[in-house]
């Protein structure tokens, strides 16, 4: 980090900072030069940090009252809802918080896809982000099992059974995961342990994610490299802090609406029925945020290949910086990519919709087409587009498009040509 050397004013501050440069870090964070043209799609990083902290804090309180035992888990959740002071509030924040977390992370990921934030030199930020996303899904799945309702139990059964698709050792792995021959108490206690662990792994990765971000600095809507600090940047504090704060408050209003007025709308009614190994629910569906991947899983007739397809759908994102061959980052200057981007967004929404529907007839057909297109987008469209697409001229600096009528337009065009070559 090429900040100017920071020297604390007080004597003690200097003494301490020589031994542990926390003050230098604080100064780096406040002064951190941020592109001044960041739009509101960029505020979701801060919102996600808020979501993580909220989940950890509410989760700690819930863990004080929850009992991880197959006979008592459901009762203890009802105890939280009824008898623990504001237990209903804490639990509804935690349950809806997971949904809000995923809503924010999907916006965050799709922002990155639109503005090419995953491209050089930000590949490591992107890959850490994908690992965080994977861990989030694991944490969400494990957490959904804990109330020990019908969906918890059968969701756990379906998902753990996926491992049985592995040849030779599959069955053994499933028994090992369950700690027995079916989902039961040993499964619940280990799921609770892991559910408690994963958020702290995520927290550590978030630190790395932000650290990796602070090396090259933020991407921006124009997607060009900028000089830092310069007239294209503003210090993080107070400009970005207040803007992120404003966006976070808007987000919290939506969040509060869910918590206070429709706290159960995103969950499944069956999860208020205590787990019963003898009764299978009519439809086993995961939470809404996992539906697109559930649709991909079910669209492949073969179990093993279905699991492979589902995992690849996520892991393919990690290879994205190399699959996208275009040198231009922002979709603003990529007229063709922009269209394919929105088709992908629609594709994922369609996958989410059919994931919630029974896997039969037209739904299955749509799921198969959408799954094929999903992979087509990453494996065929993106690599070819980078070579074929005629991109628009990219400005030389952020101030240029902001102020308009730049004298550098001709220069910018030249530069763009050079870049294309």
């Amino acid at each position: 980090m090429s900040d100017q050397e920071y020297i604390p004013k007080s004597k003690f501050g200097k003494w301490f900072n020589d031994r542990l440069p926390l003050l230098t870090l604080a100064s780096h964070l406040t002064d951190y030069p941020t592109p001044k043209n960041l739009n509101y799609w960029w505020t979701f990083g801060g919102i996600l940090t808020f979501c993580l902290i909220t989940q950890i804090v509410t989760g700690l309180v819930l863990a004080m009252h929850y009992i991880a035992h197959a006979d008592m888990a459901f009762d203890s959740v009802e105890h939280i809802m009824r008898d623990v002071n504001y237990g209903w509030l804490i639990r509804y924040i935690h349950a809806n918080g997971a949904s809000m977390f995923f809503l924010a992370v999907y916006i965050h990921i799709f922002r990155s896809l639109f503005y090419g934030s995953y491209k050089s030199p930000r590949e490591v930020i992107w890959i850490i982000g994908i690992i965080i996303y994977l861990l989030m899904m694991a944490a969400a799945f494990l957490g959904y099992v804990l109330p020990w309702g019908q969906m918890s139990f059968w969701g756990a059964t379906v998902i753990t059974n996926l491992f049985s698709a592995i040849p030779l050792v599959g069955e053994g792995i499933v028994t090992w995961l369950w700690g027995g021959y079916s989902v039961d108490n040993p499964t619940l206690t280990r799921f609770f342990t892991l559910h408690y662990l994963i958020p702290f792994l995520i927290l550590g990765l978030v630190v790395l994610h932000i650290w990796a971000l602070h090396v090259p600095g933020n991407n921006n809507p124009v997607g060009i490299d900028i000089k830092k600090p310069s007239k294209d940047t503003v210090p993080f504090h107070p400009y970005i802090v207040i803007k992120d704060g404003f966006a976070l408050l808007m987000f919290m209003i939506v969040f509060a609406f869910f918590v206070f007025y429709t706290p159960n709308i995103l969950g499944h009614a069956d999860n208020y029925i205590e787990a019963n190994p003898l009764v299978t629910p009519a439809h086993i569906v995961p939470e809404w945020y996992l539906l697109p991947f559930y649709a991909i899983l079910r669209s492949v007739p073969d179990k093993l290949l279905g699991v492979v397809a589902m995992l690849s759908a996520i892991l393919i994102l990690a290879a994205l910086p190399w699959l996208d061959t275009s040198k231009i980052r922002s979709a603003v200057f990529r007229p063709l990519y922009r269209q394919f981007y929105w088709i992908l967004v629609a594709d994922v929404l369609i996958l989410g919709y059919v994931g919630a529907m029974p896997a039969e007839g037209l739904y299955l057909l749509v799921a198969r087409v959408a799954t094929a297109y999903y992979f087509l987008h990453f494996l065929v469209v993106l690599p070819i587009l980078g070579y074929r697409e005629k991109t628009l001229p990219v400005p030389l600096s952020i101030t240029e498009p902001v102020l308009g009528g730049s004298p550098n337009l001709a220069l910018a065009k030249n530069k763009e040509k050079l870049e294309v070559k």
Partner: protein
Amino acid sequence: MKSYLRILLIFILFFGFSVKSNSAEKIEYLKTDWSFKGLFGKFDRGALQRGYQVYTEVCSSCHSMKYLSYRNLAEKGGPEFSLAQAKAIAASFEVTDGPNDDGEMFTRPGKLSDKFVMPYDNVKAAQAANGGAYPPDMSVLVKARGGGVDYIYSLLQGYENPPEGMSLDDGVYYNKYMYGNKIKMANQLSDGLVAYGDGTTASVEQMSKDVTTFLMWAAEPHLESRHQMGFKAIVYLIILTILVYFSMKRIWSRIETKV
């Protein structure tokens, strides 16, 4: 500001989707005005007390309510019986306690701290007494059914003669709103079945509404304080958001860029 509007649109779409996907499987249920819906929704005290009466006199002979205690009947936001009334209600039930110093179980009148007395000793006993079907516990029943209160309300009034050509086994009844239309619970409500103390006419419709309101409270005992707190929280957040918005405008006015 433009992109902020777009984000808002996404939120609305997301919300719309979630509402729509939840209503996808819904059949047309009977509608009634629920006092507890809406931003300021509160329970109708009278309906809760009458609903408790219907539950005790009709439902409780088969359906347990294991998460409720008699003290809940006197708590704020519930039926709000007076403490004396709640004590009297509790005392009217025989509770098995023990073992005592001789190692014997004994029965005593119920106390406020006791859970609602269960109609059967265990699930097997309940099944044996009901032709193999377990009458579900009613504590969270409203939240455990896709249609929620509308479903329960409709189901109670949905008994009809089976359509021609449909043969029903012994102990199976036809209900318009039941999943698969076959239900093992016979029609329980008939006009004038209970004698309401407050003079309300005990029609089937009225009893269905009252007992469903009671079940809603049983599933969400803190619904009223949730609505009250929610309104305050959201008003607070909106005011804070407006203030922060103007601070942001002020701070960003130092530079040329619009925010």
